[in-house]
């Protein structure tokens, strides 16, 4: 029994041990995908032997392990070939679909056998270096080779190149339907590809941003960063193996990208936060560039790996530190910095997580991929936000700008309208202002904008740009020009105060002559000057010219008018008490007399009898003087007296020549002036009279009025008292000329009676006569005419006085005179030049007066006679024939 038991035990051992002695992956259901990670079902052996592949090979002495597992725990840094053997048991029967196996990532190359037959290989296991160390192995298990319900062996011949990282060291290990395993593998890759595409899209997006806004360099670096990360990840996927890309080249590029990312990231941060490139940053960049070239020019994969491990990765730490430092310094001020900081922290956390996971410190999903995605996504959002923010700012600015442009345009339009209005206003002012206004520049040129009046004042055209001094030269004397120049120089110099300087203005008021017709026109101009300052500098002189001619003329007219008015007033006082009709008559007679004088002068031409001419003129002037005297026209009488004196002077002048008579013309002009004034006054007075409807006087009344006025005035002047008796004075009808003549005769005789006949009241008193003398004028009709008798009760004719005067004149011999009868001597009072009055006065005294009476009477064929009695009376009898 014991023996039996032993046999049965041995059988069991013999049967079961081989059956159960080797650990196996037990596939219970062909349809299920079985993961055998971390199951101690794997045998490992260092070294190479072709038998190791065989199903029948006894591997019981091999080390047991689980997957994933590098061989360093068994063989240290062994670099060479190791074999893995995995025993698999399938259920009975064959699978409906083909089976496959996933053997994770094997470093570096492998040849995999199933039940002794090669089912797949990756990399070049016999020609190192690296060729497939990151490839996920998925191989088909040919159904024909499957031994259902029996032991099957998957044997992997692996060449390891990296100390500590050789063999099937990571990823998933599965067995199941090939389709499921493949799709599981490929879908993970496709999932990774989606990230890659996203990175590319983000990269391109920001690349375009950069192209649109070149100044935002952070967009360029972020774009490059994204593209590089995308590239890197793309190269990291399994597609390179699927498409059989050259593994070596792909890995080289991968490492180069890794070193470049450092630069791109730091540049991005620098530009984003507008940091200046300090020496420190430059050094970082140079340090980042170095591994790039080292990888480029090195062919050693081991070197790349070391470089990555000992250079690039630490550099990344420095870089991350720098980035974080920059971010921290901006933390307080910038939301973006804060966000970026958080994402970097998260990225770092994921990286640290993965490092810890790869080192098997703990088991967790690898996070770096997600961390990166999160990082790039966040930064893209930050940048995008920034862009949106900028965009809306730009939009706001645009709107603002539009508003401001609109506002400015409106303002500009308004300003232009205002300017135009101001220009119109200025033009209107310059066109209509009554002064000449212009600007003088430093070279004394007249500015283009001057008032229109200026041309009129200067009587010149095209004044723009003309030299002021040249213009003045035509108007004022050379020596004055110098003064004007000096004055303007002082003005431009600007050292002396304007007010003080203006007191020296030589052009304050100037009189200029402007050619006009045959002569010149006189103008008075007043210039004033003002400095015009621009930025405190004296650049122009504003000159104002005023034409003061009218003002001056007005001044003169006013003065003349005042004088005239004064003369007229004086005249008026003389005229007011005279009957206007008498005055009218006087003016008419006098005008005729003056005309006669002028005609006589004109007729004389080259006459040799100048004295005769003068004597005739004298009589006319004397008659005028007499008439004026009768009416008491003092001023006029005096002027006539002046003419008389001129004639007297000329008559007495030795070597008298015709041209000497000019002085007579002057005194005549002098006489005519007041006559004109009298005439105009009389005219006005008679207007008043006609308004007052004063009855017209008869010729007799006019005559009587004239006689009375003359007598009373002469008497008043000589201190005599006289009455006139006109009882018997009756005039026949006669024409104006005869009446004028009659008046002249009667007045002359009556005047003679008052002056020479009637004594002063004292004298009369002494003689026992009444104080008041009497002059009686009467007419007596005769068959062929009438007599006018003028009788006075005065002293009679003073023969002695006549005699002595006649002697003194040298006209008569004294002895001869004494022989003449008394009547003849008495009649001498009618001779020219004989006046018994001692002083020559305007009323009498030149002995001309009675001689005119005599001449006139003789002219009309009349007669004059006189009788007298000393101290009793004188009586003139004048016979006027009727034609």
């Amino acid at each position, binding site marked *: 029994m014991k023996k039996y038991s032993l046999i049965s035990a041995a059988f069991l051992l013999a049967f079961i041990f081989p059956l159960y002695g080797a650990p196996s992956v037990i596939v219970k259901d062909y349809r299920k995908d079985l993961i055998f990670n971390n199951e101690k079902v794997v045998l490992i052996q260092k070294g190479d032997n072709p038998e190791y592949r065989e199903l029948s090979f006894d591997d019981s002495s091999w080390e047991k392990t689980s997957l994933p597992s590098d061989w360093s725990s068994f063989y240290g840094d062994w670099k060479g070939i190791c074999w893995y053997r995995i025993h698999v048991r399938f259920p009975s029967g064959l699978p409906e679909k083909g089976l496959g196996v996933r053997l994770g990532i094997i470093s570096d190359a492998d040849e995999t056998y199933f039940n002794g037959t090669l089912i797949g290989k990756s990399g070049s296991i016999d020609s190192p270096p690296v060729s497939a160390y990151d490839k996920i192995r998925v191989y088909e298990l040919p159904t024909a080779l499957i031994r259902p319900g029996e032991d099957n062996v998957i044997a992997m011949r692996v060449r390891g190149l990296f100390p500590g990282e050789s063999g099937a060291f990571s990823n998933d290990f599965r067995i199941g339907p090939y389709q499921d395993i493949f799709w599981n593998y490929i879908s993970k890759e496709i999932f990774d590809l989606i990230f890659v595409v996203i990175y590319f899209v983000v990269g391109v997006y920001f690349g375009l941003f950069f192209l649109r806004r070149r100044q935002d360099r952070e967009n360029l670096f972020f774009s490059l960063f994204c593209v590089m990360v995308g590239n890197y990840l793309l190269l990291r996927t399994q597609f390179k193996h699927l498409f059989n890309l050259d593994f070596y080249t792909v890995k080289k590029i991968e490492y180069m990208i890794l070193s470049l990312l450092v630069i791109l990231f730091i540049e991005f941060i620098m530009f984003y936060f507008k940091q200046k490139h300090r020496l420190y940053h430059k050094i970082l960049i140079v340090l980042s560039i170095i591994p790039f070239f080292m990888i480029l020019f090195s062919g050693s994969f081991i070197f790349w790996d070391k470089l990555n491990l000992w250079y690039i990765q630490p550099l990344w730490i420095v870089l991350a530190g720098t980035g974080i430092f920059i971010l921290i310094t901006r933390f307080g001020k910038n939301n973006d910095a804060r966000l970026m900081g958080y994402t970097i922290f998260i990225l770092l956390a994921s990286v640290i997580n993965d490092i810890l996971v790869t080192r098997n410190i703990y088991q967790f999903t690898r996070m770096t991929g997600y961390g990166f995605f999160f990082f790039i996504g966040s930064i893209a959002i930050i940048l995008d936000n920034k862009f949106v923010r900028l965009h809306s700012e730009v939009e706001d600015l645009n709107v603002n700008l539009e508003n401001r442009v609109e506002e400015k345009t409106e303002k500009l339009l308004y300003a232009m309208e205002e300017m135009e209005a101001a220009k119109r206003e200025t033009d209107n002012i310059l066109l209509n202002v009554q002064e000449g206004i212009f600007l003088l520049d430093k070279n004394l040129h007249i500015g283009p904008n001057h008032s229109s009046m200026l041309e009129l004042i200067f009587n010149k055209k095209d004044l723009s740009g003309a030299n002021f001094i040249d213009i003045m030269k035509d108007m004022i004397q050379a020596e004055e020009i110098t003064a004007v120049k000096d004055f303007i120089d002082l003005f431009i110099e600007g050292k002396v105060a304007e007010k003080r300087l203006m007191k020296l203005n030589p052009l304050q008021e100037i009189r200029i002559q402007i050619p006009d017709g*045959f002569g010149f026109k006189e103008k008075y101009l007043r210039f004033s000057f003002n400095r015009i300052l621009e930025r405190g500098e004296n650049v122009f002189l504003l000159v104002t010219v005023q034409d003061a001619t009218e003002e001056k003329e007005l001044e003169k007219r006013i003065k003349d008018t005042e004088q005239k008015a004064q003369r007229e007033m004086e005249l008026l006082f003389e005229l007011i008490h005279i009957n206007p009709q008498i005055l009218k008559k006087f003016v008419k007679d006098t005008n005729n007399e003056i005309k006669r004088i002028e005609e006589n002068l004109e007729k004389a031409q080259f006459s040799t009898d100048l004295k005769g001419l003068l004597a005739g003129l004298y009589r006319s002037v004397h008659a005028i003087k007499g008439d004026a005297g009768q009416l008491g026209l003092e001023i006029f009488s005096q002027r006539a007296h002046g003419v008389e004196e001129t004639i007297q002077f000329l008559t007495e002048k030795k070597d008298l020549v015709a*041209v000497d008579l*000019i002085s007579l013309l002057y005194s005549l002009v002098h006489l005519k002036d007041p006559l004109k004034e009298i005439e105009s006054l009389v005219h006005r007075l008679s207007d008043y009279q006609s308004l007052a409807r004063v009855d017209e006087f008869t010729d007799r009344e006019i005559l009587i009025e004239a006689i009375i006025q003359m007598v009373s005035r002469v008497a008043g002047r000589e201190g005599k008292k006289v009455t006139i008796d006109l009882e018997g004075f009756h005039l026949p009808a006669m024409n104006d000329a005869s009446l004028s003549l009659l008046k002249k005769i009667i007045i002359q005789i009556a005047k003679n009676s008052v002056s020479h006949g009637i004594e002063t009241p004292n004298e009369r008193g002494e003689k026992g006569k009444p104080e008041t003398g009497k002059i009686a004028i009467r007419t007596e009709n005769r068959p062929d005419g009438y007599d006018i008798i003028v009788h006075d009760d005065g002293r009679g004719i003073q023969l002695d006085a006549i005699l002595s005067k006649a002697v003194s004149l040298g006209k008569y011999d004294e002895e001869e005179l004494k022989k003449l009868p008394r009547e003849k001597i008495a009649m001498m009072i009618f001779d020219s030049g004989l006046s018994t009055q001692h002083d020559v006065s305007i009323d009498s005294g030149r002995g001309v007066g009675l001689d005119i009476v005599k001449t006139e009477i003789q002219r009309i064929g009349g007669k004059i006679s006189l009788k007298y009695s000393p101290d009793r009376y004188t009586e003139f009898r004048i016979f006027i024939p009727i034609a």
Partner: protein
Amino acid sequence: MEQQQLQIFIESIMEYFQKITGVGIETGVPYLKEEDSSVLLGYTGVIGISGKMRGAVYITAEGDFLSELLNTIMPGMERSESRIAGMAGELANTIAGNAQKVLGKEFLISIPIMLTSASGDASNKLELKAPTFVIPLKWKNHQAFLVVGLLK
């Protein structure tokens, strides 16, 4: 115009004739003319005067007077209308020149203007101011007039 100033005009013309022709010019009795009537013979040389006084001075003569004068000054010179008229201008110029010397810069004297009876109603163009003094002149039996009309 002052008498002395008028005298200057007269003297300057007398001096001119005495000096240039050797035959003195005779002056007749001067007379006054109204403003609106003027003495005008065939040829007239006018000078306009302004300044302290305004008006005109002219000398007017017939052609025979002037051609005789021309002949005396430049014997053998061909006579022409323009030369005769020029002579009237020359006379006026002489008066103007002399007068300017004496009267000084207070008087502004225009260049002489010649008028002939062919110019039409020349009196309109004469800006004589009342009172107008006319001085008859006689030289070698030819008549001329010096006319002065100035107003202060």
